[in-house]
């Protein structure tokens, strides 16, 4: 679980949103990588930010803290953060910790982008 297998890629979406694709295991050891990627994105009112978590195979409490912090930072600046592509296990986890009531969730990145512009 701590073999440092997390990749984060940031790509500006053509319609003006940032898409962060997170693949692998998000835990105590790997979360600094996602934190750095998040810190590099300049958020402003109306900025769309999608974190594509469909490739996330593992998420521990540190990962949860990071996602909540990112969500709160987006809210504070008026940006819109969506988590896209949560696996059934990840959704189950979000339900247990009550974050399904907090996060904006979409099945896919494309649907998340479409929802940002609807």
């Amino acid at each position: 679980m701590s073999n440092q297998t997390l990749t984060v890629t940031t790509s500006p979406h053509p319609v003006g949103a940032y898409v962060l694709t997170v693949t692998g295991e998000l835990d105590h050891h790997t979360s600094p990588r996602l934190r750095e990627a998040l810190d590099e994105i300049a958020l402003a009112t109306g900025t769309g930010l999608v974190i594509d978590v469909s490739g996330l195979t593992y998420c521990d409490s540190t990962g949860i803290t990071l996602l909540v912090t990112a969500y709160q930072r987006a809210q504070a600046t008026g940006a819109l953060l969506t988590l896209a592509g949560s696996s059934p296990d990840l959704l189950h986890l979000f339900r247990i910790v009550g974050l399904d009531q907090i996060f904006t969730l979409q099945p896919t990145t494309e649907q998340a982008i479409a929802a940002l512009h609807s």
Partner: protein
Amino acid sequence: MTVTGSALRPSPAPRSADEERRLAAVDRYQILDTPPDGTFDKGAALAARIFRTPAAAITTADGYHLGTVNVLDTHPRQVTAEQLAALQNLAALVMDQLEMRLSAIRTVTSERQMRTAAERLARTLQRTLLPPALPQVPGLRAAAAYHAASADEVGGDFYDLFPLDDGRWAFFLGDVCGRGAEAAALTSLTRYTLRAAAIYGPDPCAVLANLDTVLKGEYPGTDPRHCTAVFGVLGRTEDSSFTLTLAGGGHPPASAVRADGTIQPLPVTGGQLIGLLPEPRFTQTSTHLAPGDALLLYTDGLTEARTPSGPMRQEEGLAAHLAAGTWDDADDLVAGIRRLLDHLGTGVNDDTALLALSVPIHPPAPAQETR
């Protein structure tokens, strides 16, 4: 070429006091029986170039006479003063290298010792955070266990069972985020806050809200800390049953194991993480524990989602395990879950705390002591 024991330690010859001191110095530099070292190879090659000789054996030299830097040739000849000076410089370089190696070895060793000490301290601290023994609750059996997933890293699971002023009993079980000494400190704060809050006002949701406020006050700003917990209050009724009110904050459901073998999850769905959200919701549920019924609370890497063998499957596995067995009492339940955890082995990648409460079918002798 390497610095070898055979080059430095002339074994069978009787040792003089000087030789003993030299060997002690050799040991101190930890250069015997070490794997081939590229730096010494390069030094040897350089010596061979300076002297235009076919071979140069380096066995190290310094004030302690660790050994000598030797240059060998296949035929006798004279060396120049220049060459001898170069050989001395080379010996000094080899010595510098040995000093650097020794300093690196010492740094690594002391760092390792410090880490081991810190881990031992954290484990000791964690043990003090769990009650050494559960109190005797009149008309109830209680059992608990702590299953550590790793000997090196300390998790932050906790539980407790204690009396309230009004004759009722309160209990909690939970898991703080993070690991190691920081998690232990957070566990300590969480446990004492829950106990204190329960004495002031034992409404389960209010107790969790109180903890939420304390955690946010203690860890403000950009480095928030959170935990998940179940908090419950038990009141004994005249028919030897117990009323149970249970609140949850971001924690998996507790399970009621009924006298007839039915497994009934007691969901506190909607309850949110404690200490992380601006206005968290906590939810509570009530039920009865009749004679023969039991309640099981657990943590199991609850804030983790892992495929393909994630805690979700583990949770299902737990329910199946509970349904498949017959359970005499709380002790039996905890023993059964421990067997399941042992069976899962390395699949359990987080610490697990267990707390079970059961109502005996035949009430125990009335003169039971409370603590």
